[in-house]
């Protein structure tokens, strides 16, 4: 009984870390441009189709295929900045968010146009053999995903808080005009953020879809990860891990113990309730920046 409880909590935590990995797509773009990217799920699907195309359809060696997918995703990220966001530097945040909604629709249409609506078997990039510890069973892709999420979060946390480029990107997120006045290239910062978003989407897709089926509807996980991003606060990379763990454990235990009792899917609602409660108390999320404005 206790082992089962721990197993549900552990798998929930790993699922939460997967959500945190997806949510990094929101935070990376937001940290660099103050844009809430509504198309995170679609970017993940595009990354997944690139991996599928390279590894399964073109039969490249997985290492070569993944490298190719990563390279193309960087180019896609740069193209998004060049075609859509470069013109919006200095414009209102609202305009930029509307453009990301347009981007969501455009990317969904492009994926349908290029690869069609058929379901594709996503290659098992990560072994599907589960990790068995006594009576506990842990899906290997989720375990690998948890590890990748921690490594990515540590790397991105260092990058945004310690590196010159990362700090410049944070300044861009504060205010485009001030960043420009300080000699920071807003264009380059935003381009870098979108390229980084592209890379993250490829990595996340391999964790999420390894050995499963891929369609354009796989983008749904983008919205499933939303509570994690909002709970953490949209500026905190490290906070995503804690938020992911909280959401994942709560969701996992609800699915295991509450859903069978009520005969419904409380697990899909509880993370949102939890998020709402936290946002009522702390509107910027648990680790979001507190902005002091001079009146």
């Amino acid at each position, binding site marked *: 009984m206790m082992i089962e409880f721990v197993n549900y909590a552990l798998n929930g935590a790993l699922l939460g870390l997967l959500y945190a990995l997806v949510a990094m797509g929101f935070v990376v773009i937001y940290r660099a441009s103050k844009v809430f990217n509504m198309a995170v799920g679609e970017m993940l699907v595009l990354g997944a189709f690139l991996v599928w195309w390279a590894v399964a359809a073109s039969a490249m060696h997985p290492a070569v295929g993944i490298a190719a997918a990563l390279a193309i995703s960087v180019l896609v990220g740069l193209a998004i900045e060049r075609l859509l966001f470069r013109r919006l530097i200095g414009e209102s945040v609202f305009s930029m968010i509307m453009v990301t909604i347009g981007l969501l629709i455009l990317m969904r249409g492009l994926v349908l146009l290029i690869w069609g609506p058929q379901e594709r078997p996503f290659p098992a990039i990560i072994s599907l053999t589960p990790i068995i510890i006594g009576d506990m069973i842990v899906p290997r892709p989720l375990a690998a995903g948890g590890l990748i999420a921690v490594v990515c979060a540590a790397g991105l946390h260092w990058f945004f808080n310690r590196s010159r480029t990362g700090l410049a990107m944070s300044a861009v997120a504060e205010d485009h005009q001030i960043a420009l006045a300080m000699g920071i290239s807003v264009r380059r910062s935003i381009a870098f953020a979108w390229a980084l978003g592209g890379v993250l989407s490829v990595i996340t897709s391999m964790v999420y879809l390894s050995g499963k089926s891929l369609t354009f*509807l796989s983008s749904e996980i983008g919205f499933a990860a939303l509570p994690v991003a909002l709970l953490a606060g949209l500026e905190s990379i490290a906070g995503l891990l804690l938020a992911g763990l909280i959401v994942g454990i709560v969701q996992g235990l609800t699915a295991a113990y509450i859903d069978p009792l009520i005969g419904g899917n409380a697990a899909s609602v509880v993370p949102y309730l939890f998020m709402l409660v936290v946002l009522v108390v702390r509107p910027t999320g648990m680790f979001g920046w507190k902005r002091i404005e001079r009146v």
Partner: protein
Amino acid sequence: MQRPNFMSGTVTLMAGLLLAPAAHAQTTLNVAALADFAGPYANVMNDMQGGRLAVIDWWNKEVGEKLKVRIAVKTYDTRYDVAQTASLWPGIKAELKPVLLLGLGGPDAAALQQRLPEDKVPMLMGTAAYGFGWKPNQWALNIRPTYPHEAAGFLEWFRASRLEGKRPVKVGIISSEATPAYADQAKGLQAYAKAHADRVTFVEAIWTEVQPADLTLQVRRLANAGTDVIVIQTNTAQAVATKRALQALGKNIPIMLSLHNGVLGSSKALGNPNGFVGDFEVGAIADASDDDTAGRRFYRMLQEKHGLKSAWNAMTMLGLGQSIVAVRAIEATVKAKGADKVTGEAIHAALLATQFSGAELMGLLPGVDFSTDAPFPTGSAKVNIASMKDGKVVRVAADVPVPTLPKW
């Protein structure tokens, strides 16, 4: 001599041309087809749509010409979305003035169920029916009984053939609350188990996302409870996630799938042409096995003479089955009322009054007998059970009776 001949010839030709349309006066009846080319069923829509159009082409040439009636179909993409169907319908009604609607599934029923009686246009759907639509005097009619009816037919067969009727079959279901139709499948199965506790023990309903990230622990719970069969009537993504979980656990619990997420489609999505060997697909419509059935012969004829390109699979079958009932209902109405008096209301009346035999429906369905009590066939419903071997669908059992279920 030549001029009078030329004149009389011209006059005759002109008279002929003028009279020709009258002699061949043909009534065109408009049918609106709702489709999903950009939503969750976009991957299988082409096959279903091909089936629909081929049957209507066949009927126009073989039956309609003699009756001087032509059915014209116009297709609308509703993306399997309630809001999309609801917003498109007033325009469809005004533009096309359809006498019949070919619906796709649950969202169409949810969007139009309340409106159609007022609009006097019946809708026929190829999918199985839903408990929330199980009300008297409906205009949204399914050619198959509800998903729980189909699952119940299978479970009774499974109990009799695999458990020798010695104990109740233990069943779990994996579903989602993403759409009312998916949630309804679990509720109906629970109601059936409650009413027939001697035959079925309901283990648990696992509620998950439409595309689950992982189901290992949930499936282990079902396995630990001694589940005999896992029912999945939602989509292929859940079927694949369940299969992966079973593989991870080293368990071999048979999965019962529906037709839109059948063994072939799910195997393809799994990346293994034989991935779902030992599992089943169940539906109250002809199966897609290679057996030389009347339905298969009709399909081949449509391929040869009416340009049917869709593969021989469950989705094509849904399109064929749905449209064969549609054309037979129109035919019955034309014969009863005359071609110029065919209205949505008259077709609805014909659907309720006529018992369509399996032979009339070209062996695609066991027969259809609508009544005012339920929006799906009750008396004639039987399910076919198929599995797979060497990457092909094989028939396991045919014409398995569907038990009576209480409303839920």
